[in-house]
């Protein structure tokens, strides 16, 4: 299971990085989304991968999993969701202002 999760995180990160480095805003938004999935999985795995175990100490159940990473992941998901929504809105506005979809539309300073 560790190998599959690690390879999955690596694949997501690689695809995310590739897309973030492209010039179109849509690719960048997708890339950041993939990156945030990868990051969430890393955070989740930081409490070790345990299947079918409660995140609590329960009488008579010897195995349990660390609840803290789950709380961290929830926070991270909420934040990255909000940020992505804002980024999409901002990209739409930038396209409306400059008529182009991309990162090279800025005025030289």
């Amino acid at each position, binding site marked *: 299971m560790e190998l599959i999760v690690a390879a999955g995180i690596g694949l997501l990160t690689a695809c995310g990085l590739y897309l*973030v480095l492209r010039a179109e*805003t849509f690719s*960048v938004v997708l890339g*950041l989304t993939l*990156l*945030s999935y*990868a*990051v*969430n999985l*890393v*955070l989740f*795995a*930081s*409490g*070790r991968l345990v299947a079918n175990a409660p995140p609590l100490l329960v009488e008579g159940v010897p195995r349990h999993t660390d609840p*803290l*990473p789950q709380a*961290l992941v929830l*926070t*991270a998901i909420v*934040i*990255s969701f*909000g*940020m992505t929504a*804002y*980024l999409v809105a*901002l*990209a739409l*506005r*930038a396209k409306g*202002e*400059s008529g182009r979809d991309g*990162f090279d*539309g*800025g*005025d030289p*300073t």
Partner: protein
Amino acid sequence: MSHLAIIPILLPLAAGIACLALERAGLVAQRAVSLAAALMMMAVAALLLRHAGTGAIDVYALGNWPAPFGIVLVLDRLSALMVAVCAALALPALIYASGGTDALGRHFHALFQFQIAGLNGAFLTGDLFNLFVFFEVLLLASYGLLVHGNGRARANAGLAYVVLNLTGSALFLIALGLLYGTLGTLNMADMAHALARVPAADQALVRTAASLLVVVFALKAALFPLSFWLPSVYGAAVAPAAALFAIMTKVGVYALLRVSSASFAGAPVTADLLQPWLMPLAIATIVAGTLGALAARRLAVVVASLVVVSTGTLLAAIAASGIEAIAAALFYLVHSTLVAGGFFLLAGRIASARGEAGDGFRTGQTATRAVTLGAAYLVFALAISGVPPLSGFLAKLMILRSIQEAPFGPLAWTALLSSSLLPALVLARAASVFFWEAKPAPAATAEARLGLPALAMLTMLAASPLLVAFAAPVADYARATAMQLRSPAASEAVLGADPATARERRP
């Protein structure tokens, strides 16, 4: 338990929510709430300074869970100083905005207050994940403030800024995940103890995580080569937002200083993480910022480039890492934040006084109230470039003296001294364009009133002379802060005298 430590977060948060609720009631009500909150923040910051100035370290356990299980806020000399600088910067910026800038878009005051809440939270927290959350709060508010007033340049700068910071946040979270996975804690004081007993198998992972964390803070602080985003972003924002942004790079510097002194410095695994390359990169940052100031075609971009220079200067002193160097860095931090914030306000005034030409370096109509603006310009230019007799000179002198023994000392001296000379030349050239080459204004132009924005800008003018007049108490406070950062007192306040048993205590 005193609730003093959480007030700097709750007060602006409540004010921001009130501003949102008062949207229907109009701008006047929002201004009143926002300004009242900023005034109260000044009073709270004074209380914090007085309390922390006694050397006391307050630990505020959120939810009453003791560290390292729960999240704690830590109020010590350093965080009190940062909260005070933030409050001193926010009030004039808000007064400036109340002169009409806040009417350019919606929710200016709410976003401004949320950003202050995020800044104060980042300064006060003693937990790394909580630091991430407050970073996001202040960044989200800054995304909104940056595009306030619309325009193509702002939307494009905003897009690049948001993508860059989202990538930074992803790196931050990866670092946190790795640190929690290897150390089992995210509390800064507890991390120091966990770092001291990292098993050999995990050491590479811990170093990777710590390096990622440092990269993220370097991005926020705009350390070379992660500094190129800053001038176009800060130059694009409206003046009061840019003034508040002057403290955002200092959050990165603060986080570097805090994490390296509270967690990384004490453990052999991470002790040599920053040392070998912080000084060369700081020097490169100074050079990059100075070149940026030389190349800029607008005053706001020059000031933004000088913010990059100030980051480099601060980190050069922090890299030298003696008590005197850290104390000098803290003095310089207060100076550079307030002066850069004031200069952004002045750039905004000059832009609005020159009509079409704005703050660009091209001949335009004579600025209205050119004498006041010119005098203010002289003071800010002297202060920011570090020419006697203002605070920039004192701060740079303290830094120069403290880093002469450090590795790369002579190189740092050269960079620091040229970063005083070259910006002074740039600013002098700009002044001749603004105040001498100007064409007479068309007669129809109404004389600009000496309104709130001018008042705010003139208030900021007092910061540098006041820092000179009260240099001794500020320098003493900075030295005591540097010594407190070195002492184990903070860790003891958070975890108790015996950290090994902290995990055994049940709440």
